[in-house]
């Protein structure tokens, strides 16, 4: 047997067959459940029943079923699915895998994700592109904690259509009572989390009941079998119903006569002549042409990738959004959002990350969670950070204005991913709820005595001199000498010392990574304010992480930040140990001590590197003052 072999049309009239199949629609769905629920068996059966298993694969399946199968030598459909070798040996799937099958009416893309608690990340990934979810339940076990977790994530990710597959019904003698009790139980729960469109199907993936056809074993069931339901369920309405949205991916300019903006339409429809608005600039124009490949079109709908030209020469670049002029998205830079953490390295609130939203990659930061959500109980609890697979509600700051729609209105206009600046890993994902009113209503106050006025009065430029290095490396000693010299030259200075600031402004912070990031964020902001007052600000903080030093640098204009790396080897600093801290840390009385059990990331390109084993503090101070003169800070 083979693909579509039973299809007469294929043999009789190939042209008619091709026409019919070229018009099929597409459904993307996710399956949720564990191996124990028969999920792999279900997907394997869908592939098998749609005749997409070729003879050579089938031969391999037969031999594998005998060798490692769990069905006593019968075909073990689950074996059609496993991919990576290590996983195959473990007997579980530990990642998202995409499967494909096709019937006469639809093509299906299945996101296959595991049900284990620790893999929220994978399920969120699979759900993000799905229109529908098939949630599996073992009829013997009923609605479990994992069922609730899967349903919550499905609902959070905006999937509006759910199939509850009550599987293994053969093992409860096709009992109507069992099925109806589970259905009632589930509907009561689903209502609480806002899932309304639910179809419950009694089935046995192993035996094939209610997969393709109504099963004779469940004469009491009058709903659809699984495949006929998946073939006909409406899912496309949501996409094109809303207002027009198209994030610009690429500006296409082959010659002076053509300037097109290419992108995927993520909402609504667009037609030639439509009035559109460019966000965030707010400029308006009309659609002149819609080009798709080489052809001109009158209109286009959500889901299509097109190139649009405008009637006016206005400035549009990658990252901008073209939108319906009379119904544009809001623009803001601070939001409340659900954040899903996807990396072993925990969320560091306040740390500068890269955020990708639409086709825009910008800097930004995430606050400590307002609360964390237990995905099993849906309870909220207080949290300072988010660990791998945790979900919380946080404030998110972008470093510029972002056109957006709330995630519940438009998935593509309200979703973002979080990228670590150093490793480039994708560490999180977020769903925007709404813009914070404070960012919309708190405007910059114009100040008449500006920085230039301060500079004229003081006779020198303001600057942040940032000393970084291990505890005991000599930061404060050298910083003090520098300040004395500057003071003697009539330079207005101030010094922010790590220990001193921790006695006041930052006395609520400890030494975890999360608190260290916040410690530096605050002091960087204070240093910036002081440069606004025209001062040369000497900051002597261990500041162990590159990302936060980078943030401090980015806060002030180019040329007004001087990073001084006090490079003292750990052994030397530990030997000096002026405050006795290393001895304490070595005895285990101090935890999270930089250099001992907390990392120090040395600067890659500091303005000045001081090797304290080679020069005296006085010589070092001289070098720093010379550098400030070379930078044009001092006259």
């Amino acid at each position, binding site marked *: 047997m083979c693909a579509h072999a039973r299809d007469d049309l294929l043999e009789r009239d190939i042209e008619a067959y091709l026409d019919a199949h070229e018009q099929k629609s597409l459904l993307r769905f996710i399956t949720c459940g564990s191996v124990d629920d028969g999920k792999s068996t279900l997907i394997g059966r869908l592939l098998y029943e749609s005749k997409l298993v070729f003879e050579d694969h089938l031969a391999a399946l037969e031999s594998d079923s005998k060798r490692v199968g769990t069905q006593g030598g019968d075909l073990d459909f689950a074996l059609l699915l496993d991919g990576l070798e290590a996983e195959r040996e473990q007997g579980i799937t530990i990642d998202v895998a995409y499967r494909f099958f096709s019937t006469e009416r639809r093509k299906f893309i299945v996101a296959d994700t595991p049900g284990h608690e620790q893999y929220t990340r994978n399920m969120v990934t699979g759900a993000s592109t799905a229109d529908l979810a098939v949630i599996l339940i073992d009829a013997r076990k009923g609605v479990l904690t994992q069922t609730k977790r899967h349903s919550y994530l499905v609902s959070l990710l905006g999937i509006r259509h759910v199939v509850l597959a009550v599987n293994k019904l053969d093992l409860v003698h096709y009992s109507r009572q069992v099925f109806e009790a589970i259905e009632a139980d589930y509907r009561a729960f689903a209502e609480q989390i806002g899932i309304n469109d639910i179809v419950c199907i009694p089935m046995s993936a192993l035996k094939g009941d209610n997969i393709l056809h109504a099963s004779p074993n469940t004469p009491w069931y009058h709903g659809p079998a699984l495949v006929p339901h998946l073939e006909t369920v*409406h899912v*496309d309405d949501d996409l094109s119903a809303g207002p027009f949205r198209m994030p610009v*991916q690429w500006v296409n300019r082959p010659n002076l006569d053509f300037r097109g903006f290419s992108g995927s339409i993520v909402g609504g429809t667009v037609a030639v002549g439509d009035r559109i608005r460019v966000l965030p600039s707010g400029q308006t124009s009309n659609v002149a042409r819609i080009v798709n490949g080489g052809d001109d079109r009158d209109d286009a709908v959500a889901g299509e*990738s097109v190139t649009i030209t405008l009637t006016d020469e206005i400035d549009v670049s990658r990252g901008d959004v073209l939108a319906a002029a009379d119904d544009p998205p809001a623009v803001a830079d601070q939001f409340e959002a659900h954040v899903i953490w996807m990396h072993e390295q925990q969320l560091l609130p306040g740390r500068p990350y890269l955020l990708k939203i639409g086709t825009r990659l910008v800097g930004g930061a995430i606050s400590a969670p307002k609360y964390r959500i237990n995905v099993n109980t849906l309870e909220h609890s207080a949290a300072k950070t988010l660990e791998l697979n945790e979900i919380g509600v946080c404030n998110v700051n972008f470093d510029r204005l972002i056109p957006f729609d709330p995630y519940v209105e438009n998935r593509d206009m309200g979703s973002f991913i979080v990228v670590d600046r150093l490793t*480039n890993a994708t560490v999180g994902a977020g769903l925007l709820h709404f813009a914070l009113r404070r960012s919309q209503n708190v405007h910059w106050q114009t100040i008449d005595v500006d920085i230039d006025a301060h500079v004229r009065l003081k006779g020198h430029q303001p600057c942040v001199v940032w000393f970084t290095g291990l505890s005991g490396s000599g930061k404060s000693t050298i910083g003090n000498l520098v300040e004395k010299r500057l003071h003697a030259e009539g330079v207005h200075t101030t010094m922010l010392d790590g220990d001193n600031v921790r006695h006041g402004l930052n006395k609520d912070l400890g030494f975890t990574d999360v608190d260290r990031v916040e410690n530096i964020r605050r002091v960087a902001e204070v240093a910036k304010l002081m440069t606004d007052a025209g001062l040369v600000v000497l900051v002597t903080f261990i500041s162990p992480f590159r990302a936060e030093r980078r943030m401090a640098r980015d806060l002030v204009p180019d040329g007004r930040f001087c990073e001084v790396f006090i490079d003292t080897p750990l052994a030397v600093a530990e030997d000096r140990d002026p405050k006795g801290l290393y001895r304490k840390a070595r005895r285990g009385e101090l935890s999270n001590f930089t250099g001992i059990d907390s990392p120090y990331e040395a600067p890659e390109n500091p303005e000045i590197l001081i090797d304290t084993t080679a020069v005296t503090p006085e010589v070092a101070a001289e070098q720093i003052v010379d550098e400030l003169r070379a930078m044009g800070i001092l006259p």
Partner: protein
Amino acid sequence: MTETVETDRRVLSHLQRLEAESIHIIREAVAESERPVMLYSVGKDSGTMLHLARKAFAPSPPPFPLLHVDTTWKFQAMYEFRDRMAKESGMELRVWQNPECVRLGINPFDHGSQLHTDMWKTEGLKQALDHYGFDCAFGGARRDEEKSRAKERIFSIRSAQHRWDPKQQRPELWNLYNVRRSPGETMRVFPISNWTELDVWLYIHRENIPMVPLYLAAPRPVVERDGALLMVDDERFPLAPGEEPEMRSVRFRTLGCYPLTGAVESKASTLSEVIQETLLTTTSERQGRVIDHDQSGSMEKKKQEGYF
């Protein structure tokens, strides 16, 4: 239950949605790369990918070159077709032949299929990417081809040594692709990941995409060896004593090096007939390729070593 809405013009067909997704992927990769390139192997998947790239950037030509990692053992008709397509698309064509293989005269008859493929293709590809400094290479692999492909990402980051680490793959959510790379790292991008063999054929039919004539049945000189029909494409084919090429009506389901690619007997001389025969056939497409059968999980091992 309500009837299907397939008649509503707002519902895109699966081919329209697949096309739009692929175009989105190609544009995203190009927008975020310094030196992108498209791997072009002359087969139907490459042809489909090239067609999508042309649609993505029309009326401009795609802003990157084509790269053919050549083994010198492809069918003559493939070389002719390759040069024609490069000309038609207005794209620059770079051809790379592993100089080590040229020097040693590596060929499938004397060195076996595995060594031949490793050296010409796997090594050749790495050399070509390093030589030209490409930081992003499009490939025409599909997830339905092989089990380990089902879990590979659309955007796949490779180390400076071109290795793939299946445990360090980045999650891909919505249509937000993280394309950030560290210096030296490169990216392989698979725009037709979500297409199946049937989708590709239907799309070729709908869009009238030009294909190498080898996919259509025609009388060709072949010899039968170990149950496979091999085409005698040029005089380098060593005939065994008593072996005599005979003319048979054959076509090819996949295209590679001619001594490693088995033909099937067929009378299907139009695209529609080929699709019809393909759908009525009983073995998977990759079965004709020798490399997949070496060992269980062999494709995965090859990918970790840098095979596309």
